[in-house]
């Protein structure tokens, strides 16, 4: 495959494919989330307390979005651009290191 759909060009705010030949054969990596942040859907926001975190990464495994990442220091970080605030991470966390707080907008 020559083009991987969704490699965002510098300065682009939208991915526009002008002719059918620019499309890949199969509908892979449409890349819509590169420009379409899904993090503004939430009401509650997860907050991690590093003092309670035991680096078990259960939250990272259970997150249905790619919203939890492992930081360089080994603790978990949350990508608020994509976190929808579902609360699964807080529910699964065995040490209650994650709490859901009402987001101030």
């Amino acid at each position, binding site marked *: 495959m020559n083009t*991987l759909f*969704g490699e965002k060009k510098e300065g682009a705010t939208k991915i526009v494919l002008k002719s059918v030949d620019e499309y890949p*054969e*199969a509908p*892979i990596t449409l890349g*819509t989330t590169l420009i379409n942040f899904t993090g503004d859907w939430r009401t509650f926001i997860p907050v991690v307390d590093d003092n309670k975190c035991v680096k078990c990464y259960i939250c990272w495994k259970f997150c249905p979005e790619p919203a939890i990442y492992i930081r360089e220091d080994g603790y978990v970080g949350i990508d608020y651009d994509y976190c929808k605030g579902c609360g699964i991470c807080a529910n699964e966390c065995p040490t209650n290191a994650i709490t859901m707080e009402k987001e101030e907008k």
Partner: protein
Amino acid sequence: MEYKPIRKVVSGNYAAAYAAKHARVEVVAAYPITPQTSIIEKIAEFIANGEVENLQYVAVESEHSAMAACIGASAAGARAFTATSAQGLALMHEMLHWASGARLPIVMVNVNRAMAPPWSVWDDQTDSLAQRDTGWMQFYAENNQEVYDGVLMSFKVAETVNLPAMVVESAFILSHTYDIVEMIPQELVDEFLPPRKPLYTLTDFDKPFSVGALGTPADYYEFRYKIEKAMEEAREVIRKVGKEFGEMFGRDYSQMIELYRTDDADFVFMGMGSLMGTVKQAVDVLREEGYKVGAAKVRWFRPFPKDELYELAKNVKGIAVLDRNFSFGQEGILFNEAKGVLYNTDAHPIMKNYIVGLGGRDFTVNDVKKIADNMKAIIEKGELDVEVDWYHLKR
């Protein structure tokens, strides 16, 4: 290596299982359903006996899951295979769209069986033809040999154009009936069918991407067009692969419609699958009796063999389309397709639709002779009695 066929007496289902084995499939996910069961039983036996390496069998709880597992395996780059029948195929329907939409060359054997109710396990093509618009290619086998050959060719065609393919055989008439099948030595199958080169693979961890993500109205349309382009390309690939198969193994499949004694025929019988074996035999008998008839067996229903049909229709006065299937509210499905293809051409033979053999109703040489008499009278008179004839109906 010189080609020396290995002759085995096998059922249509075992022919399918052997073909899958020889194609070196890597993942089989299937759920048992009569009359398909013995295909996957045989594959399970291959695994249990250690006759195959690198073949994963996934036992699933339904046909919907079977196809889902094949889709996952195929997206990861594996050569995936499954088999089903009738209600099982219907249950898979949603997933069939996922396979073709994601451009995964999965090959499936569907054992043609009538849809219920009334509950039936006998031969009828309505199950596979109901999947006409899913983006799957469809090959109809006349006999056990064609089941074996069809699976091998389908993998090659599917992996060239990146679309899934269905090999269709008749319930019991082929699936459970034993016949001599010439199998190909493994080394030559490997030469004919090299390992799959996937369009993309989910196991490339350095380049992660998503499959089947949201396509808005701005993009969806283009992907549909790409599937149609692949189908168009498949016509040529099918002819090329069929020719190559003929050159290597002596059985030529370069024609998408197999013509039998049609050269000087006044009219031909057209149909698909095992019933065409009966028709060919009947053609021989009728020729002895002075009828100028031939048979046209549609091997590939998708992509539809438009060019071959046009060439045939130009040279005959009539076509009797034998449909072991029915689209309620209209007519036989093959008849409907064939008439549609010819509308904008200058070839307009008289075409009549005979609905035969539904739900496994016996269809014999004698039936073909009766149809021949009816067709002959129609052509002499120059007009149809009825367009769609429920031939076996108890009146």
